[in-house]
């Protein structure tokens, strides 16, 4: 299952934040989004077995205080 992870952070995300996902072989894509009123945002597209694994993987990343949204990508 693919999940899009949106991270809204007051500070730009560093590459090291997505390293655990890269090393685990689940990171399909990553990028930055144009900053808005909430701050700087980035996204990670990950491929994992289920929602729990998506949550656990993101939870383990040492992120600065930020808002994270995890949304499943539908299978077409």
């Amino acid at each position, binding site marked *: 299952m693919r999940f899009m992870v949106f991270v809204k952070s007051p500070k730009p995300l560093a590459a090291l934040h997505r390293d655990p996902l890269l090393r*685990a*072989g689940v990171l*399909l894509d990553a990028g930055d989004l144009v900053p808005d009123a909430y701050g700087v945002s980035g996204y990670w597209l990950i491929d994992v077995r*289920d929602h*729990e694994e998506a*949550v656990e993987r993101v939870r383990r990343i040492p992120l600065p205080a930020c808002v994270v949204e995890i949304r499943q990508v539908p299978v077409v």
Partner: protein
Amino acid sequence: MGATTSVHRTIDAVWRMESAKVIAALARYTRDVGLAEEMAQDALVAALEQWPEEGVPRNPGGWLMTTAKRRSIDQIRRRENFNRKVEEIGRDVQEATPDASEGIEDEIGDDLLSLMFTACHPVLGTEARVALTLKMLGGLKTEEIARAFLVSDATVAQRIVRAKKALADAGVPFEVPEGPELAPRLASVLEVIYLIFNEGYSATQGDDWLRPELCTEALRLGRVLAELAPKEAEVHGLVALMEIQASRTKARTGPGGEPVLLLEQDRSKWDWLLIGRGLKALERAEALNQPPGPYYVQAALAACHGRARKAEDTDWQRIATLYQVLAQISPSPIVELNRAVALSMAFGPAAGLALVDEIAGAKALQGYHLLPSVRGDFLAKLGRTEEAKAEFEKAAALTRNEREKTLLLERAAACG
């Protein structure tokens, strides 16, 4: 009940994420992969008992690691002749905080790599290597492996027990091989990953969902290996090959589950994200400037199709050249037959026919229906219908696939 189920799902997820690291780190301390795997399993059982009541710990990986290490010490203490090891591990556990899993990443990487090489050691048969890899590196349960491979739980359990015993009996060291040993050992790892991928890729509609899941797991293992061994071009070659092949999953079967040939696939159904990843992996392989290996060349071939938005855009000249390279690395009449098809697409049927006639005597092609089928196709395109008809009929008699037989007889009839 709801909460318990949710905790169990979390435990499953944590296990998939952490088990390989726990087993790998334990194997380094105990020098015994079998023991490491058992103790990690024991820690999982303890988690299943305790977490639903006490809640999931803040660092679940560290918890599993600490628990498994304590149990290893207990086990080893029971075996008197391991006194020295007990001291080593005892010291280590005392030093280790509950955050043990947040150790130095390089060290964990080395341990994981050693675990991959051990699970895929050539002293083991293919099935044993596959089962052990999925169990120890994929974090799959025995029953999941059994379902994915359409065999019984007992069969897989036995394969794993025997494999661990075989590793112990052979005294296989827990390490990353070096020097001249590295290339053949790496080839064995790559072979296992690609076997797992193909097992999933050959799954048909209606099969258990775990079968196609094998593709995802193989891809994941390949990507992990690419980060652990970034200087090995063939690793990137294999990853590229799997990414590009996986990109065609939705296009390669029709609504009735029948296979759709590459050139007839609806390319809008290809997963262009995966193709892009495949092409990037191919670039990583190329940047290393190593002599081309079989996975790299197969990936480069797949990429020729992957780069073409329409079938007509395919670079057949490059495909013909790549088949020539592949024929040099691993000579085979089948590769030559593919090269003949590429030549005909690039330079016309006469060029293809010339090569087919050159290789027609090869032993491996006798009784192989694709030889007369391909030859018939070239002859038909050249207007030599009488000969083409005979070839299609010959091919129809050789194939065991009913659908293919019908198609071939239709082509024969069309020759008049």
